[in-house]
């Protein structure tokens, strides 16, 4: 245990070699093979990743997150805009000279090399002395708990072990920046959570600037210092997991990160930062409407998370009828019909609360503090 800690300390030395990443006005356009069209994969993105941070690019497939990652790695180049690693512009630097590492979705382990050689590969390429290679490689093998597997081949390892080898291979060369391309998507759910936590704690200990691409929002929430949400090539919001979840700037973001209910409303008045709105005939006061610019008289939509709603058999509140009740163990999920609207409501720890059944009449109480007012766009209700 003692020696292990010392190893980590030694490895921590290279956190000093890590550096930030900056994207300035980066656009990538692919010419389309069929027809005369073009496909804008990434549009005018500015991004600043400070040293030691883990930033996640999150979005549905086709949003441009992987393209962005590949531009930073150098496997694609921007159509316009500039990428900096540290303060150095990368326009003319090939991928192998950028001082970065990457963990691939498919792991991309070298099938014809054993685990030791897979991990030592980057060091051998650098033509370091034999003793340095041996020392570094063994250190990382120990750190990644791969001892005893050195002479095995990738195909003889389990998914989780392969993942560790891929990570070991990436960190052994002490990169300035570490890139992750959906690294956990090939693992089953349990292992994915475990590896996620392991990965995050390793990244924190080593302090390597990391950029992580995923389409799994819970993964992004769990590991990131900062989340960047992308949609159709645009960067739509950036912030800490807490900011993004609590203050989404559009229904798209609110819906992509977690679940959200959207209620069409008319903004009657804005006073002292509070918004007075009407959902149908029901007046609601929103004390903390959020980051979106709003003005009285406009049509907006309210965004409220399922866990910010209470259900009561009777009392003060908007009346509604339970149209669906689903038991999940840790929570009950209800669908409540209220006139034209329906709300998804989550009640945690159902053992201790009143259970409702389909067809029950209930009163709903919204946690006003948690309501945000967003610009109306095509709301994706699912």
């Amino acid at each position, binding site marked *: 245990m003692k020696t292990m800690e010392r190893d980590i300390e030694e490895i921590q030395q290279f956190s000093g070699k890590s550096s930030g990443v900056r994207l300035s006005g980066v656009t990538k356009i692919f010419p389309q093979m069929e027809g005369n069209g*073009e496909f804008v994969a990434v549009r005018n993105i500015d991004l600043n990743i400070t040293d030691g941070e883990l930033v996640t690019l999150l979005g549905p497939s086709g949003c441009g997150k992987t393209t962005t990652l590949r531009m930073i790695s150098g496997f694609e180049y921007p159509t316009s805009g500039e990428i900096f690693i540290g303060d150095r512009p990368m326009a003319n630097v090939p991928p192998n000279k950028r001082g970065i590492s990457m963990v691939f979705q498919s792991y*991309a*382990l070298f099938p014809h090399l054993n685990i030791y*050689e897979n991990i030592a590969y980057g060091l051998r*390429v650098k033509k370091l002395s034999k003793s340095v290679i041996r020392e570094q490689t063994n250190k990382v093998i120990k750190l990644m708990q791969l001892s005893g597997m050195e*002479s095995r081949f990738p195909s003889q390892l389990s998914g989780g072990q392969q993942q560790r080898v891929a990570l070991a291979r990436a960190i052994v*060369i002490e990169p300035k920046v570490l890139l992750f391309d959906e690294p956990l998507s090939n693992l089953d759910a349990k292992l994915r959570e475990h590896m996620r936590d392991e990965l995050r704690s390793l990244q924190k200990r080593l302090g390597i600037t990391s950029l992580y691409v995923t389409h799994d929002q819970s993964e992004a929430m769990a590991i990131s210092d900062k989340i960047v949400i992308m949609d159709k090539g645009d960067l739509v919001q950036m912030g800490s997991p807490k900011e993004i979840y609590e203050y989404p700037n559009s229904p798209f973001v609110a819906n992509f990160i977690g679940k959200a209910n959207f209620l069409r409303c008319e903004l009657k008045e804005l006073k002292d930062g509070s918004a007075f709105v009407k959902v149908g005939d029901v007046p609601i006061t929103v004390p903390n409407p959020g980051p979106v610019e709003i003005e009285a008289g406009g049509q907006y939509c309210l965004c409220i998370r399922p866990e910010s709603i209470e259900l009561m058999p009777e009392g003060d509140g908007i009346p509604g009828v339970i149209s669906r009740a689903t038991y999940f163990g840790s929570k009950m999920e209800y669908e409540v019909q209220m006139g034209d609207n329906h709300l998804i409501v989550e009640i945690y720890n159902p053992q201790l609360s009143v259970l409702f059944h389909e067809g029950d009449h209930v009163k709903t109480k919204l946690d006003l503090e948690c309501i945000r007012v967003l610009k109306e766009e095509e709301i994706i209700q699912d």
Partner: protein
Amino acid sequence: MGAKGQLVSRRKLSAKNSMKDFKMLLHQPLLLLTIIAVFVLLFIFIMLPIFNVFKLSFTNAEGGFTTQKFIEIIQNKGYGQTFLNSMKLGLIVALVSTFIGYVFAFALTRTEMPGKGFFRAIATLPIISPPFILSLSIIFLFGRQGLITKTLFGIDTFDVYGIHSLIVVQSISFFPVAFLTLTGILESIDTSVEDAAYNMGASRGHIFRTITMPLSAPGIASALLLVFIQSLEDFSNPAVIAGGFSTLAVETYRIITGMYDLQGGSLLAIILLLPTVCAFLLQKYWLKGKSFVTVTGKPSQKGRKLHEKHIMWPLFAFCTVISGIIILFYGTVLIGSFIKTWGINYTFTLEHFEYVISLGWDALKNSITLATISAPIGGILGMIIAFLTVRKNFFGKKVMEISSMLTFAIPGTVLGIGYVCTFNQKPLLLTGTALILVAAFTFRNMPVALEAGTSTLLQIDRSIEEASTISGADNGVTFRRITLPLLKQAFFSGMVYSFVRAMTAVSAVIFLTSPKWTLATTKVFSLFEASKYSAAACYVMIMIVIILTAIVLINFLVQTLLAPRTKVYK
């Protein structure tokens, strides 16, 4: 999509992209140099010779453009007949070979027939065997002194020379090409489709007609075209057993060596080149898009293959008969090499071997040397071009792809003429040297390595190489340490094929050999022309032994040299 970023026109965009591609190349000098070097090689050794054949054909004595000779050739009835002969032979052989190949492929991939390993081995024998062997055999069996015609039935009026013998000999020689193509296709058709039809109550015959056959149709067309090309290109068989039946490849040779008419020869060569190149392009680009094969990556449940007696045994009988014929042919030559005078004195002797070794040892050594030099060069070059065309982006990639594949379709005779008139003056004075032979072998035999490399690379996840790059490796290191080892199998088959083709080449080298550099195949050819059949039989037997030994050796070398590093440093 409300575009915020600037929008560029498509042409500007692709120009911009290729500019960036080019800029990136400038930063990878090794890659750039390799690309340029490959282009230079392809230009000098493939495009220039072909161009020169055309130039020679349409240039008059004063160096101006002329079509006079061309019109002469076209109007000449004899040459018209030759053209029709070649086409007819090609068509018949394509049909027969593809039929045999399909039955073999179907029986071996779809049934539980016994003896599959044996049949597969028999079907590869014609691929690795030296030329002339089947012609020799048919003369031994059906010739004037033939074992079957004369000794068995006492017939001495049967004429073995002509199109009938050619059809038999070429069909046996080239059905393996169809067999291999169709095996690949049949293996990649997911059998669960057939199982589904069977489940719905279709009979086996109905399934074959409505599912298996239509799904393998592109493969059948491919096989037909490939065999057609081979038959047209074939020089060695028609040269010795065609009799009065003239074919383009042989006629070209006769015009040049007999009438010293290089221009007439190259015109005939062009007439030979056009159909083969058309067939090749058709096979390569038109059929590729028509393939129904879908690779799902999901291993489907291996169900039981066809085992009904009334299906299996007729197929087995067919394969046995064909294999019997092949064994008969090869066995005849083997025995013929130990027999004093075929048809007259059947006593055992080793004198032919003594004669052949004293006479032809140098030629054998030359063949082995040159094949050994050219095989690895062709193999590596094939892998490099596969790597470049599959994995890299650069200007002129398509040109590289097509021109490097093209030599597969260029008849050896045509390439030979091209080399003769390209490399007969300074600064490219190569005629009479070993270098010209090495170049001919390398470039003519490279396409198989290239093809194998390309299809293997397409199956290898691109990110494996990217992982190497991002670990700091440049293109050279990535190619040597990652790509090439992963291409081991393709490299091996490319090398073996190059070696075998170099050992057995006739048409491409018939104009290129020189007194100093005679080759084994030309030696056999001259033995043949001198009617020294038993000696020729000895010679080809020795060649078979050498080729088999070489295959084993190459396999061993590739396995050891590219073996994974297994040492672990603790």
